[in-house]
Structure formats: C-alpha cells, structure tokens
C-alpha cells in the first residue's frame, strides 16, 4: 500500500507545489490552525481541525464577478474569468469534503455558477480521516463519519499510531495527486489506526420532522436568546453558501464582488422600503436551523450541515446547533 510518513507531510506539499499545484493545507499560524495556501517553511498540522473550512478555496469570502471601466455616457464591461488555479487541498476534514455536495447542489441546480464550478473542477481534495474528535464534533449525527471521504479524491487513513498515513486515491484527480507526490510517498505496510467515533447526539430525521411543523414554536425565542447576530457561525460553516453582491469602485473603474453573507445579520432581509420579514434574532436563527435541516433537505435531498461543529466551537455566546437539534429530537436512549 502507498504510505505517507507524517514527517513527510511538507515534502508531499512541496512535491505538489513543484508539480504546479496551489497547495492548501492546515497550517499553524500564530498558535491557531488555518487551512490556507501552503508556502515552503509553513508547518502543516495535518490532524488539527482548522478554524476555517476548505470552502474558502471554492467559494472565497470575496470574489470579483464583474468589472467595468466607465466610458463617456456608458460603461465597458471587462471579461471576468474565474480565478481557478489547479489546487490540491491536503488533509481536509471528512466533514468539509462532505459539505462539497451541499455547495455542488446549490451552485448547479437550475443554472450553473461558473465561479464555483471552475474552482471545484480545478481542485483535488485529499481527506484525512479523523483519529480523534472533540465535544463539538457531531458528523455521526448528520449521516457522516470521521472515516469517510465522500466528495474527496483521495483518502489518508491514519496508521501506526499516527506515524504514517495510508494513501488511497479515489478518483483520477486523487491518483494524479499520488503520482505527483514522487518520493514523498513510499510503498509498504501499515496498521490503520482506529477512527474517532463522536457520540450521536440527535436524530436528523426527527429534527427535520419537528422543524417542518414548528415554525411558530415558542422555543425559537428561548433558543436564540444568547445569539448576538454576528456571522461567525455562517462564515466558519463548510456548507453555508449565502452571499451578498456589492459594487466597489471609483469614477473610472468598478468591480462587482460577491461576499459571504449570513442570514444571522439583521440587514439580510431588510427591504428597501423598511419592512423586515425577519425582524428579530429568533426569526434569523430559526432560518439558520430551518434552512439546514428542513428547507435544504426538502429541495436537495440532503442536510446542509455536516457536523463539523465549528459554529459551536467558536460562538462567543455558546449557541450550539447540535444541542438545539438534540433538544427538538432527542434520541430514544439519550
């Protein structure tokens, strides 16, 4: 079997960079781990849960989708092409790869979003199965698993007590990654390590069923009381995909950007005329829950949550979507 010594993680990244890939990997950055563009010298923290998800590389927080120069009474449109370099995402989390199906669905139903698709097509995703999970992980509650690689092109399995990884290309893109790795990979035998098993905290089917008939529940006010209405949860979420479109520019040149947006912000649904359908935070937080566990599944046949737990891990107010789901759909034996 193909093996990667953990100590050769950076050699793997370097080999891919030399082969022309932009390499994204979890990198230690001032004590915090972020998935970011790898550069020689950066220390890869392969097993860590990064602050951000890999959606940053497919659906970045800001992206130019139009560009114009002003000409006399009018404006001349410049051709804007997606910025989609060939990219290798290394040591992504299984829950992040699982979220690709959510992004694929929304950016391709009905009409296709070339900016997302160009990046998606140019990206090869290598997932590292999770040997450990923390108290916020809940992939097993939403149909995922720390050992699966849905959406990925290559799977790394931790082995030999974390010293090595077993390399399993899953697609042609994944095989190309393995081929480009050169001497960073070796042939040999290794014993796969046990996979983490986060507790199943709720039954998503029951949560969806409860949500479908409880839009008016008084529970929303109670559950949302701590929420202060920032966008931290949405921006850290691998599956959240709402965006704003804003123009920036000078008199002579302007660009149209799409920027991440969040249904948690009060301005998200504010009409120009002053009416705001979601006038308070309970309505906004309800939308977050409904969209992930009711509306999205109704339309696209899958949950818009993959249980990475980032939203709860970083929320200043202690909002916890898994806890809320457990509240509305307790497991029989919980």
């Amino acid at each position, binding site marked *: 079997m193909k093996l990667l010594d953990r100590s050769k993680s950076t050699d793997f990244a370097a080999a891919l960079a030399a082969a022309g890939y932009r390499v994204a990997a979890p990198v230690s950055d001032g004590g915090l781990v972020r998935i970011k563009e790898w550069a020689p010298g950066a220390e890869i923290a392969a097993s860590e849960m990064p602050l951000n998800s890999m959606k940053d590389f497919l659906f970045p927080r800001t992206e130019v989708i139009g560009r*114009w120069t*002003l000409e006399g009474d009018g*404006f001349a449109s410049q051709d804007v092409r997606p910025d989609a370099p060939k990219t290798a995402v290394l040591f992504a989390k299984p829950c992040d790869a699982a979220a690709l199906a959510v992004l694929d669905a929304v950016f391709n139903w*009905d009409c296709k979003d070339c900016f997302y698709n160009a990046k998606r097509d140019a990206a090869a995703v290598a997932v590292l199965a999770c040997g450990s999970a923390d108290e916020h992980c809940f992939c097993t509650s939403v149909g995922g698993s720390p050992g699966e690689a849905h959406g990925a092109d290559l799977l790394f399995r931790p082995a030999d007590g974390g010293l090595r990884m077993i390399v399993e290309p899953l697609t042609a893109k994944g095989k190309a990654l393995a081929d480009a790795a050169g001497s960073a990979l070796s042939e040999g035998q290794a014993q796969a390590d046990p996979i983490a098993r986060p507790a199943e905290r709720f039954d998503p089917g029951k949560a969806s069923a409860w949500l479908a008939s409880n839009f008016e529940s008084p529970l929303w006010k109670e559950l949302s009381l701590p929420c202060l209405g920032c966008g931290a949860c949405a921006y850290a979420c691998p599956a959240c995909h709402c965006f704003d479109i804003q123009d920036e520019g000078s008199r002579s040149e302007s660009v149209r950007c799409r920027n991440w947006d969040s249904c948690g912000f009060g301005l998200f649904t*504010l009409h*120009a005329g002053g009416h705001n359908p979601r006038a308070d935070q309970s*309505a906004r937080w309800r939308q977050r829950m409904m969209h992930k566990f009711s*509306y999205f599944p109704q*339309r696209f046949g899958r949950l818009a949550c993959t249980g990475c737990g980032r939203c709860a891990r970083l929320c200043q107010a202690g909002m916890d979507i898994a806890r809320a789901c457990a509240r509305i759909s307790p497991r029989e034996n919980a």
Partner: protein
Amino acid sequence: MTDNLYQPTTLRIADSRDEAPDVRTFRLEFTDSGYRSEFFRRYRVGMFGLYGLPGAGESVFCVASPPTRTDHIECTFRKAGRVTSALQDREIGQTISFRGPYGNSFPVDSWKGRDLLFIAGGIALPPLRSVIWNILDRRADFGKVAIVYGARTVADLVYKQELAEWGGRIPTAYGGGTSSGYPSVGRLPTANGGGTSSGYPSVGRKDVDLTLTVDPGGETPDWKGKIAFVPTALKESAPSSENCTAVVCGPPIMIKLTMPVLRGLGFEPKDIYTTLENRMKCGVGKCGRCNAGGVYVCKDGPVFTLEQFQSLPQGDL
C-alpha cells in the same frame, strides 16, 4: 457569450417619465440584439430583472411592459437607496445594466374566458401593468376586466396617464393636473403584434372598470375617487367572484389585509394570485437571500397563488 451568470447586458434609456414623487419609469432599448431576442423568447408577464449601474449595484424590479411590445422594455421604480438613486441620475441616451428575465410568471393563458380583477397598492402597480396591457392587447380572450388601485396620496398614484385611459372618468383627479401634463413618452404605442386593432383611446375605454382610491388624508380637494384603504375600497366595490381570477400586488401589509376580503367575496385560494417581494441579490437561486420556507422566491416566484402563499411561513414574508 459568457457563461458568467452575473454578467449583465446594456440597455439604453430611450425615454423616461416621472410618475410620482421619487418614482420614475424608464423605457429601455437593448443594445445587444442577441440578448433582446433571448429576452423576448423567455419573457412572460410577472417576471423581473436586475437593473443596475456598475459602481452602484443592482436592484430588482419587475418588467412593467408586456411581452406583446418587443421593441423595448419598461421599468418603474422608486428612489430608495444607492442603486435606485444612481439609476435616477441616468439620463435619456445613457445606458444602464440589466440581467433577466428571471422568475416565474402569471399563467395568463389559463385565464382565457375568465373575468379578471386586479388589485394594487402604491408602487406595486407596475407588475400588474404588464399583465393588464398584455390582457388588453388580447382583450377578446377575456371576460370583464376590473382594476382597484390605491395609493397613500393622489400624488403617489403611478401611471396617471394610463389610469386616465383605463378609467376615462377621472381626468382631472390629479391635483388639478391634466393628462397632457405628463410627457407622452411613456405612452405605449399601438400594438405591433398584439391582438387588438383598436389601439389606445386617449380618454376612457369602456372595457375596463377602474376604481381608484387614496388613503384617508391623501385626497386633494378635487379628488373624485374613493377615500379608503385598498382592502376597504375592494370590499365596497364588491366584485363578483364567479368565474373570476384576482391578482393582488402591494406592500406586505396590504396583501395580508386584502386576502380575507377576497375570501369573503367568495374567491378560492387557487384563483387568487399575488407576488412576493423578498429581498434578492443574485436572482438565480444561489445567494439564499430570498429563501422563505421551501422556496426561492427568485426561482419559484415571484408569482404565487394564495394557496401556495398560505403554505409558506408567514413570518418570513
């Protein structure tokens, strides 16, 4: 041809007309004939577009002209923010950006042979205007046509000239103004491909029953229409629901108060249509902003029957 969903085309402002304080109508011509053909291949009444100006942004308005007029499109909008202010700063001959048509449409063909009742409030007449002209262009296909239209004040009524044409009996109702006070540029020319041969009488057609109303306090001394909120005016005019389809457009509060009146008149939820105005950005079912319940208003709407409307979470509308 770009595969960029968000790439707009360019429209030239052929004419403009001030309708009411801060409300303006643009007549717009396509500069790209390919886009124009594709637009009219897909356009049905009720659909909307994203009108914009690079550097300021885009804003959603309906297409206010009917598909039976294929040399231009029109839009009517109120100055309310950055984009609409920038658009109103544009002058005849200058260009704006446009994407569309987007969204679903009114099933006009399924209304053949039926009476039609249009109810609108304030700046929400434009989405109905395209339907109304579309219907009038093929007048013989339909039964009676009645319109109940209200605004906060007399000044806020839009399409005054067309109201005069539709209603006939209220030419001096606009604070002493006359229809000649409005430039004729907004007047739709005789149909070129439409179904009627009669054109548009300058005063009073007999085949439309128009009821105008203004909110109490919004009347002028010479106002000859009703003085009542739209739902009340509707109740007073008591149209028959038999073989009749109702179409309601207005601010959310007006819609909510009008629906019970229509139900009281015997209209079934499947025979009442309305449009939703949820905030939108992308217009193509990606950005998530217009999501309410299981629908994306930009794709599944903006046209809904009351039956569909009632199945949506009312707190999100």
